[in-house]
């Protein structure tokens, strides 16, 4: 799934430069940037970014910014910033970095990428069970009843399945299940 990236930076020139570098990158979705921190708090709640790329001169307290969530906070620097300040960030992008380095730094900082070293993309037994039922055309409610879990749990499994496979539609997941021999051909009829 794409990492949602919020850029907070006063310079329009730098915002546009970053957007042009990240445009077309399948790993990131660049959210509407902020040029000041006036609306930052509501944006963090409303847009739920995975990565916050922010000019450190705008930030007083990184920890408070990060809050309880898993959001990564990356510093965007183009002037000298104290090393002690930068060590509170999950990564540092220097605007003189090359395109590849900038993308790599952001990817490294992404939550979910660094937690266990590598994300596990294999479906769990439970997720597979949900997938099989989905492919047979069952609704969330029916799946919940069949597996003896709540609808909420089914929805959360579905999110994980989509995250791992990159496939959103039920029709697409059915093709996936067939290609991986998770369902019997006759089960579809």
């Amino acid at each position, binding site marked *: 799934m794409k990492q949602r990236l919020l850029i907070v930076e006063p310079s329009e020139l730098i915002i*546009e430069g970053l*957007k042009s570098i990240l*445009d077309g990158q399948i790993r990131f979705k660049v959210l509407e940037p902020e040029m000041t921190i006036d609306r930052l708090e509501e944006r963090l709640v409303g847009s739920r970014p995975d990565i916050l790329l922010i000019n450190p001169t705008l930030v007083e307290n990184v920890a408070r910014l990060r809050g309880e969530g898993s959001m990564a906070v990356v510093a965007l620097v183009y002037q000298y910033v104290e090393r002690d300040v930068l060590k509170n960030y999950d990564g540092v992008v220097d605007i003189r970095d090359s395109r590849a380095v900038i993308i790599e730094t952001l990817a490294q900082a992404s939550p979910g990428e660094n937690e266990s070293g590598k994300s596990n993309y294999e479906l769990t037994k439970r997720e597979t069970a949900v997938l099989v039922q989905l492919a047979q055309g069952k609704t969330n409610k029916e799946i919940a009843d069949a597996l003896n879990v709540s609808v909420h749990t089914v929805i959360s499994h579905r999110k994980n399945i989509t995250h791992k*496979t*990159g*496939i*959103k*539609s039920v*029709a*697409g997941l*059915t*093709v*996936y299940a*067939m*290609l*991986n021999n998770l369902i019997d*051909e006759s089960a*579809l009829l």
Partner: protein
Amino acid sequence: MKDNKSRLFSSESRMSDLITAHPSLLSMITRLGIPLGFGDRSIADVCDASGVNTAFFLLICNVYTFNNYVPSTAVILGTDMTGLVPYLEKSHRYYVDKRLPHIERHLDAIAQKLSGRIGLVFISFFKEYKQEVEAHFSHEERDVFPHIRALMSGKCDTTYSIGEFIHTHSDIEGKLDDLLNIIFKYLPPQVDDDNVLDVVDDILRLSEDLKKHTFIEEKIMVPLVKHLENAILS
């Protein structure tokens, strides 16, 4: 991003320079009814010869070329938009009659290499998608476009309002992403042939084109129609 009517290209630039710099515009240009063979004529000359409004042409070019470009309402209202609906209709036909069948032929060839029912499920995924796209387009052609034509000729038909469109307009590229993921990640290695490479190219191109198409409908057509509806009601 700020509005700047003509961007990099002005109506006096040569059409051939525009296409050399942005070859992906070519398909959009032919859909506007502009034939090839521009020679050294300027954008304005080529547009005039084909009866296409130059400002409208540059507006669409900008949308296709600059990803973050959203024309302001002032720019939209200041541009002759009579060509908009015919262009959208032409685009629909291009997607439905040309691009989708083309992709389907490649997918058919791929499906042949998949065993039995798997190939069938694979191809029916695409057929289903194609039907959804066609239904999406026919709804627009049946309800939305006639409404716009009526408004443009100063008539008010109150049976439909663009509010309904905004409410129900769904993205039509999502399933193409699913298809790409299936092809990249999950097709068995034995189907690794030229068809796969060709179809991936085709899907990516169609997906980009559809994104721009949706963008034109949502960021140009909708504000225009809202304005026309308000003007007629007041």
